[in-house]
């Protein structure tokens, strides 16, 4: 049990960064090749169309260079990554049926408890596979599908084939291509017409193994006038060696539907988090991304919404908190392709102990998207001289009859603000933590209470766990 000991480096990650011994039942050898891709497809016993999809994507991945912008990815060694690790023989429907180490992991992370208290359904992925999945019976009866992506592909091929890879094609970018060739796990969500799922569906992604690459793939289809809130949390065991997470998330919001997608990303600081997330919103549909980036070594993530239907709406509210050694390059994209569409982008970022945050916003309004509205606001808070923050907004407006705005602020914690709080008995750390919590409040108040509490605790840990 020696390696079950948490590894505590600069930060106290013992709450999230603990390890369990490797008890996986199958793993590919490290590195990526055509053989590895075929091996993954074979283990999964996939139809030929999916193998073809994977192999095509592998070509795209091999051809594309690394992005020349954003965080430095030069130390990311694709040959050192293990692309597929199968943790258990089969998926469990009850926590008791899981191997001891995996069950202990999710218990420490509070997932079974959250499920009992307030979730409509839970999926838990451990390394490459979803090891536990459950949806409340009444939702099943209403035709809601919430399962892992592999099962989704097997059991609902007609729906999956129709949408899979259509929102984010495999050649969209290098990491979408990588995901497309080695994807495993993730969620498949289908909400039938008119059904409102009132409590959140939650997926939890855990990386336990060293040198691991996790490539889950999520597809959400909201039929007309349906509604759902999907929440994902991500954490990883802490190691010296790098790990890679490259997910693809596709959302199809059909007319009049409302999809909210919340991410609380708290990977350990050895994880490269290179994720592509995109939604397509049809007539009068409303899509919200709530995206919190706290962990990871480097993040590149720009949740996007394509407003293709008249009257569709987009809200992208994201936060980033970068500490020592972290480079969080996050942002948002809103693409207006129809009249009367609106988008709201809000970003809040904090950097400390030499961390770097960068906000990239992209708003595009196509000709004919008349009466469209878009507003972007980004605020950065820099906590010390070693840290920094950048803002790269891009507006590309090809229509005159629109209303577009952009605001940006960069601030530091003021001496007077600190003195005021300290004069009431708070230590300097507590005072700064309070200012940071207040800074993120616009985000936190959108979270369900249980997550808001967890989020505030995370910030507290970041603020007081990393001294010097």
């Amino acid at each position, binding site marked *: 049990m020696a390696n079950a000991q948490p590894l505590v480096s600069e930060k106290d990650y013992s709450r999230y960064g603990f390890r369990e011994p490797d008890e996986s039942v199958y793993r590919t050898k490290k590195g990526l090749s055509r053989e590895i891709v075929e091996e993954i497809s074979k283990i999964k016993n996939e139809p030929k169309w999916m193998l073809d999809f994977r192999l095509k994507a592998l070509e795209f991945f091999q051809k594309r260079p690394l992005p020349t912008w954003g965080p430095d990815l030069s130390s990311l060694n694709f040959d050192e990554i293990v692309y597929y690790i199968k943790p258990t023989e089969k998926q469990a429907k009850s926590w008791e049926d899981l191997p001891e180490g995996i069950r202990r992991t999710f218990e420490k992370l509070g997932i079974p408890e959250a499920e009992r208290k307030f979730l409509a359904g839970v999926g838990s992925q451990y390394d490459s596979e979803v090891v536990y999945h459950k949806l409340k019976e009444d939702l099943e009866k209403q035709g809601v599908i919430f399962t892992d992506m592999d099962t989704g592909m097997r059991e609902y091929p007609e729906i999956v084939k129709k949408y899979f890879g259509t929102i984010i094609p495999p050649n969209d970018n290098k990491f979408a291509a990588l995901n497309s060739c080695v994807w495993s796990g993730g969620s498949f969500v289908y909400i039938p017409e008119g059904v409102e799922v009132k409590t959140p569906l939650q997926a939890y992604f855990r990386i336990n193994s060293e040198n691991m690459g996790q490539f889950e793939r999520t597809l959400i289809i909201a039929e007309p006038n349906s509604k759902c809130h999907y929440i994902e949390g991500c954490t990883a065991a802490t190691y010296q060696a790098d790990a890679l997470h490259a997910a693809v998330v596709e959302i199809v919001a059909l007319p009049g539907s409302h999809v909210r997608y919340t991410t609380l990303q708290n990977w350990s600081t050895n994880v490269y988090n290179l994720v592509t997330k995109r939604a397509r919103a049809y007539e009068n549909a409303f899509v919200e991304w709530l995206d919190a980036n706290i962990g990871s070594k480097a993040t590149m993530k720009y949740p996007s919404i394509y407003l293709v239907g008249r009257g569709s709406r987009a809200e992208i509210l994201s936060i980033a908190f970068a500490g020592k050694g972290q480079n969080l390059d996050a942002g948002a994209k809103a693409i207006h392709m129809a009249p009367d569409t609106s988008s709201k982008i809000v970003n809040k970022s904090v950097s400390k102990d030499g961390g770097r945050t960068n906000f990239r916003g992209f708003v595009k309004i196509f000709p004919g998207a008349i009466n469209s509205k878009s507003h972007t606001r980004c605020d950065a808070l820099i906590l010390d001289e070693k840290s920094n923050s950048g803002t790269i907004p891009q507006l590309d407006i090809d229509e005159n009859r629109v209303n577009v705005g952009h605001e940006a602020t960069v601030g530091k914690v*003021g*001496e*007077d*603000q600190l*003195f*005021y*709080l*300290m*004069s*009431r*008995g*708070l*230590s*300097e750390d*507590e*005072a700064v933590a*309070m*200012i940071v*919590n*207040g*800074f*993120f*409040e*616009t985000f936190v108040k959108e979270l369900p209470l249980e997550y808001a509490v967890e989020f505030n605790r995370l910030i507290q840990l970041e603020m007081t766990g990393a001294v010097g």
Partner: protein
Amino acid sequence: MTELEIRNLHASVNGKKILKGVNLKIRQGELHALMGPNGSGKSTLSYVLMGHPKYVVEQGEILVDGENIIGLTADKRAKLGLFLGFQYPVEVPGVTLKNFLWRTYKTLNNGNSSFVDFNEMLSEKLEVLKMDKSFITRYLNEGFSGGEKKRAEVLQLSVLKPKIAIMDETDSGLDVDSLKIVSSGINKLAREGIGIFLITHYQRILNYVKPEFVHILIDGKVVKSGDYRLAKEIEEKGYEGIVNG
């Protein structure tokens, strides 16, 4: 009974000498008023007492129960029982007044406090200060009017219950009705045993708050101390009249 003693205090800000030898003694349960013209160093004294890092003490001592607190950060001074009611309270977006009060209350009580008791106590204090319950759900000082900010300071004072409170121009920016409410709040706290050191530019608040001791600060020094009648004298003669007379 806690005692704040200021001995021969010299202090500067940005290289400019402001305090030039202040001597004062304030005991818990006493009500003092410090008056003086603009630029005499009143606000500087309040910041120096609470430990604002921008202000440099060049000479002298600040003693709380005989212990010199110079060099202690503001939070340590708060834990010794000092409180500063700010002339210009600072906005802290996203932090509700209630959350702020609870966190600081808990901190000053070493974490031993019940949220239920706190809530009950907070409701009482709001009533005394004739403040609406919704007020505490607003973000700390953000968008508060001048009067609301001052009332929020007195609310903090009454919740945190320090031993000695320095109230810097709590009366400025208040209309007559607010002034009366804030004054009666301060009187009540003084009766409950908090030492009050009221810094004011105008004699106006002294119509409602009756100090036992009045001091006059001019050019960084206390030039005269007396009882309540000194305030009256200032009203009649002005500061110059007192110094020269």
